[in-house]
C-alpha cells in the first residue's frame, strides 16, 4: 500500500458510490433504506479529508482520520461500526508507510474486534460480521501458507462473497432488520454487502 493509501481509500469510496443504489435497495427491503446513501455520504467526506492531508504518509494516521470522518458523517449504525473498525485498524498500522501481510492481518483482526465490541454482535446474526469474519479466517489461512498480500485478499474476498450469500439464508437478530424476524430471511444483508464491496475494491486496486 504505502503511499498508495489515498488511492486505496479513493478506490474504496468509488466502489461504495457505484453501489449506492444497490446498498440502499437492499436496506430498504429489511431496514430503513439509507445504507447506500449514508455510506456514500461518509466516503465523500473521507475523500475531502484525504485531499486536505495528502502529505501524511503514516498509514495509521490516515486510518484514524478515515475512522473519525465516517463516525461523524455516515449517520446510521454503519458510522460508528465502520468508524470504529478504521480507528482500530490504525493501531497496527501506526507509524507504518507500508503494509505487509502480517500488518494487514493485524489491521483486519483489530477492525473486526472493534465492530464486534461496538455492535455487541457475533457471526450468524445477519450483519457485516458474516462477510468479515470468514474473510479474516481465509486471509489468515493464506498468510499461514505464505501467500502474498494479493493472494490472501483473493481468498478473503471469496470467503466474504460466500458470507454475503449466507446472509440470505438466515434471520436477522441484530439491528433494524431484527424487527422483521422471520421475514428478513431470503434477503441479502446490506452491511455484509458493503463489507464485501470494500474488501473487493482494495483487492482490485492492488491487482492493478
Amino acid at each position, binding site marked *: 500500500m504505502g503511499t498508495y493509501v489515498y488511492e486505496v481509500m479513493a478506490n474504496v469510496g468509488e466502489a461504495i458510490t457505484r453501489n449506492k443504489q444497490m446498498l440502499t435497495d437492499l436496506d430498504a427491503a429489511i431496514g430503513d433504506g439509507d445504507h447506500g446513501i449514508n455510506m456514500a*455520504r461518509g466516503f465523500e467526506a473521507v475523500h475531502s479529508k484525504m485531499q486536505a492531508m495528502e502529505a501524511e504518509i503514516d498509514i495509521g494516521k490516515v486510518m484514524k482520520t478515515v475512522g473519525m470522518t465516517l463516525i461523524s458523517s455516515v*449517520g446510521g449504525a454503519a458510522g460508528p461500526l465502520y468508524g*470504529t473498525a478504521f480507528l482500530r485498524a490504525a493501531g497496527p498500522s501506526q507509524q507504518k508507510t507500508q503494509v505487509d501481510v502480517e500488518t494487514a492481518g493485524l489491521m483486519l483482526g483489530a477492525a473486526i474486534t472493534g465492530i464486534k465490541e*461496538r455492535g455487541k454482535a457475533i457471526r450468524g446474526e445477519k450483519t457485516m460480521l458474516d462477510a468479515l469474519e470468514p474473510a479474516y479466517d481465509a486471509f489468515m489461512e493464506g498468510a499461514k501458507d505464505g501467500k502474498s498480500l494479493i493472494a490472501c485478499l483473493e481468498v478473503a474476498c471469496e470467503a466474504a462473497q460466500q458470507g454475503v450469500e449466507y446472509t440470505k439464508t438466515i434471520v436477522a437478530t441484530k439491528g*433494524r432488520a431484527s424487527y422483521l424476524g422471520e421475514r428478513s430471511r431470503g434477503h441479502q444483508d446490506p452491511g455484509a454487502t458493503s463489507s464485501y464491496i470494500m474488501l473487493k475494491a482494495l483487492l482490485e486496486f492492488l491487482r492493478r
Partner: protein
Amino acid sequence: MVGVVIVSHSQKVAEGIREMALQMAAPQQQVIAAGGMADGGIGTDAVKVSEAIIAANTGDGVVILVDLGSAVLSTETAFEFLDDELRAKVKIADAPILEGAISAVVEASLGSSLAAVVATAEGARALNKC
C-alpha cells in the same frame, strides 16, 4: 448538577425534547440536544454527542437519553473520545427518550446523584398514560 444530553436521529426531535424538558428544569440545569447530522440530515454523529456530553458536564456527570439503534452505538462511540475522568461519570439511561428526558431533568434539578438520575429516567418506562 447532573447534565442531560438528548441524542436523536432528528435534530428537531432532540431540540423539541430539550425545550419540553427545560420547562421542568432548575435555572442552572444543563440540557443539551445532540440530534441529526452536521448538515441537518437524519442520523447520529458521535463527535457531536461527545461535544454535547462535555458541554453538559458541570462536574457531577451526564445522563444520556437516546432514541433508536445507532443512537446507542454513536453514544457508546462518543464515550471513547472522553477523558477517563468524565468517561467514569456518563451513563445511557435505558428509557423512552421523551419521558426519560423529562424525568431525568426533574431529578437532576434536585441536585441528585448520577445513579439517582439514571434510576428516575429508567423509571419512566413504567409510566402509564391511560
